[in-house]
């Protein structure tokens, strides 16, 4: 290998190139000057965002829509602290992100220097791992370790804090051949005996149920998941993070479970006798009251992260491994056992399917449509129609996110991008920017509420600047809708600090940034307006005024079991005269 003299900044770019990085999202500052100087003549594309939080959200959107590592960079102090929300978000949703931050020079660390913050300390608990690079000699190894950690095992964010003098230091660069992290053990293969027992349990079950989570998407295992579901002919749900892991049109797919999941999904989770949990973490939004969750079920729990097994619900049969590898083995064993075991419960299985179809028929996810005002569900139906399962939909957080999850269908994984675990508002627009850079040929929607959108307005500049074909759809109900819904249902409708009385004129706002935009209010205008937004080359801002007091149903109230759903608003009761 050749060895040549170069700066730490240049070396960093060499390492990024070796990691296959094509673009990074960032915001420069004092201590990253040497890095930006090296970037000046380097082919890696730098996208200048308008706030560091949006850099990490954009990197997350890039990562979630591709499976590649998203990269962002920020300067020391405020630049680094502005990344924190996005790092926690990536941690919660297991998104592979590498964050590069500048730090004050090594000699100044600890002296309360200008724009100094203890980034290493602050981000310790919001990253999978983090580094402070005190010597340029360590830099190449650390960068490769960071990428390996971010993308392997259970993916997550890794931060590398680089002091200014480390960027500037000149030294001989030798490409790193191998890296060694002796304590970083990933169990990928799954225990053969456990896999066989799991297959037996599956065939022995009368009422099996597949509960697929984001781990299926992370492991690129949706093909294996589908094979499992079809071989077993079991009903399947996908969590919020896994939407698209099963095609929404698949006959075995019964939508999303949990707080705003479908009636059939929640009833089936409660009624099953075997819950096959794959790459999922029994999150409280899925399980409702844990003690009453899947009370009749034995649990098979497959996850690559051993610390997830038994964390919330004890597993009767744990398997630690990579979802793709384990499921492909499991599918083989299932097929082997099929001739001898598949028939034993066929009557019970038929009855189980009949029960599920009944639940589906009793309370389907039904959109509300009105002739006088645009209902939020109507908006999602129209987006679904125009997307036809193929658009990348990046959502913000709140009511619109739940309606989008309920009504927009996905044919494949990595087309649904949202902030799940952390529920971080302001995620929709920047994540759509990231997805747009990664998928230039795709139709990309950013669905936001009027609250979350107003957290992201500065990024209209970035979107306009690059002519990104992001279709921003603001579901404008004039409220922080999800908080209003809870105040309505649980606080006697005392609406406290949830009215968003002022919203900019969408057309003027868009045109101020040099892009097209408009507002629609009437239901008959909705479909043509959406079509216009999609047909317009480049960005579009569509502000859709929807009925202000619509609530998301079904809803599992906090503390209730998931089969104790509120299916709709209280109906007016006829009072006898």
């Amino acid at each position, binding site marked *: 290998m050749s060895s040549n003299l170069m700066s730490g900044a240049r070396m960093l770019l060499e*390492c990024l190139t*070796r*990691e*296959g990085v094509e673009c990074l999202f960032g915001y420069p500052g004092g201590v990253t000057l040497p890095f930006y100087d090296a970037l000046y003549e380097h082919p890696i594309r730098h996208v200048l965002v308008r706030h560091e939080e949006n850099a990490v959200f954009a990197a997350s959107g890039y990562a979630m829509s591709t*499976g590649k590592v998203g990269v962002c960079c920020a300067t020391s102090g405020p630049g680094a602290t502005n990344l924190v929300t996005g790092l926690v978000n990536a941690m919660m949703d297991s998104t592979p992100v590498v964050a590069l931050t500048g730090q004050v020079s090594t000699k100044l660390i600890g002296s309360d220097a200008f724009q100094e913050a203890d980034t*290493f*300390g602050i981000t*310790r*608990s919001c990253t*999978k*791992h*983090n580094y*402070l690079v005190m010597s340029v000699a360590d830099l190449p*190894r650390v960068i*490769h370790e960071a990428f*390996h*950690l971010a*993308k*392997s095992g259970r993916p997550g964010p890794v931060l590398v804090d680089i002091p200014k003098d480390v960027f500037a230091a000149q030294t001989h660069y030798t*490409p*790193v*051949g*191998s*890296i*060694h*992290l*002796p*304590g*970083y*053990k*990933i*169990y*990928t*293969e799954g225990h053969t005996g456990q896999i066989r027992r799991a297959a037996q349990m599956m065939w022995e079950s009368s009422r099996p149920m597949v509960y697929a989570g984001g781990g299926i998407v992370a492991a690129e295992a949706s093909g294996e998941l589908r094979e499992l579901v079809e071989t077993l002919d079991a009903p399947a749900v996908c969590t919020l993070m896994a939407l698209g892991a099963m095609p929404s049109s698949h006959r075995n797919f019964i939508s999303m479970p949990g707080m705003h999941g479908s009636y059939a999904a929640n009833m089936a989770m409660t009624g099953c006798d075997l819950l096959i949990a794959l790459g999922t973490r029994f999150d409280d939004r899925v399980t409702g009251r844990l003690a009453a969750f899947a009370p009749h079920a034995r649990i098979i729990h497959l996850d690559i*992260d*051993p*610390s997830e097994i*038994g*964390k919330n619900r004890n597993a009767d049969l744990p398997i*630690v491994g*990579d979802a*793709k590898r384990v499921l492909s083995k499991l599918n083989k064993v299932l097929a082997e056992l099929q001739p001898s075991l598949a028939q034993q419960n066929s009557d019970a299985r038929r009855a189980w399917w009949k029960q599920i179809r009944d639940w589906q028929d009793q309370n389907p996810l039904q959109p509300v449509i009105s002739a006088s005002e645009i209902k939020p569900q109507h908006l999602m139906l129209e987006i679904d129609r125009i997307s036809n399962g193929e658009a990348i939909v990046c959502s913000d957080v709140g009511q619109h996110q739940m309606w989008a999850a309920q009504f927009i269908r996905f044919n494949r994984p990595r087309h649904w991008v949202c902030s799940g675990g952390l529920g971080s508002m302001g995620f929709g627009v920047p994540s759509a920017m990231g997805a747009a850079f990664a998928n230039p040929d795709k139709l990309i929607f950013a669905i936001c509420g009027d609250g979350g959108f107003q957290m992201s307005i500065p990024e209209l500049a970035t979107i306009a600047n690059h002519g990104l074909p992001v279709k921003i759809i603001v579901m404008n109900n004039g409220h922080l809708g999800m908080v209003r819904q809870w105040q309505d249902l649980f606080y006697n409708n005392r609406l406290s600090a949830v009215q968003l009385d002022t919203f900019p004129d969408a057309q003027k706002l868009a045109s101020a940034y040099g892009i097209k935009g408009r507002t629609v209010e009437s239901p008959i205008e909705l479909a043509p307006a959406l079509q216009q937004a999609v047909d317009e080359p480049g960005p579009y801002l569509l502000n859709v005024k929807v009925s202000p007091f619509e609530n998301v149903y079904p809803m599992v109230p906090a503390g209730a079991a998931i089969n104790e759903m509120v299916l709709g608003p209280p109906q007016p009761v006829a009072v006898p005269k």
Partner: protein
Amino acid sequence: MLQVISLLVENKPGALMRVTGVLSARGYNIESLTVARTLDPGLSRMTIVVDVDPSLRRQVIKQMNKLVNVLQVSDLSESPAVAREMVLLRVRTNLDNRTAILKEAEIFSARVVDSSVEGFALEATGAPEKLDEFIDVMRSYGEIEVTRSGMVAVSLESKKLRLAPPILAGAESSRIDSRNGVFNG
């Protein structure tokens, strides 16, 4: 009930903070913590005594195992192990009590590490409960000042140390390829 957790960690800046962070993030208070290098100067052995709800102990240990700098975590709370602590103690005394104190020290196998007209400095090692008694006894003779080391423990069962092997650096180590080298547990 107190629990004893023994860890083998890489001797790197921040490693201690990562381990204690798993406990402090859950609001657990650490009763004692000792860290020192092992035979391999790149590694440290850490013994933590903590009051964790037993039902959460396994979860806490799994979380510690996940840390990149942690090579091994052993739960010594319910497995055969020897635990010891050291105490350094200064007792002020008048001339009348000096002989009695030395007798008591002998009972506890404590050593005199300093002697002056004001009193003694004593060094004792043993099981933590035994040291509690020693301190109580010394307190009955006069004003004392105590420094305890915190517990160190060694497991009496040998546990195989499993390490991840080196892997290729760069994009060549794609997500799945990078795992080919990873052992199957």
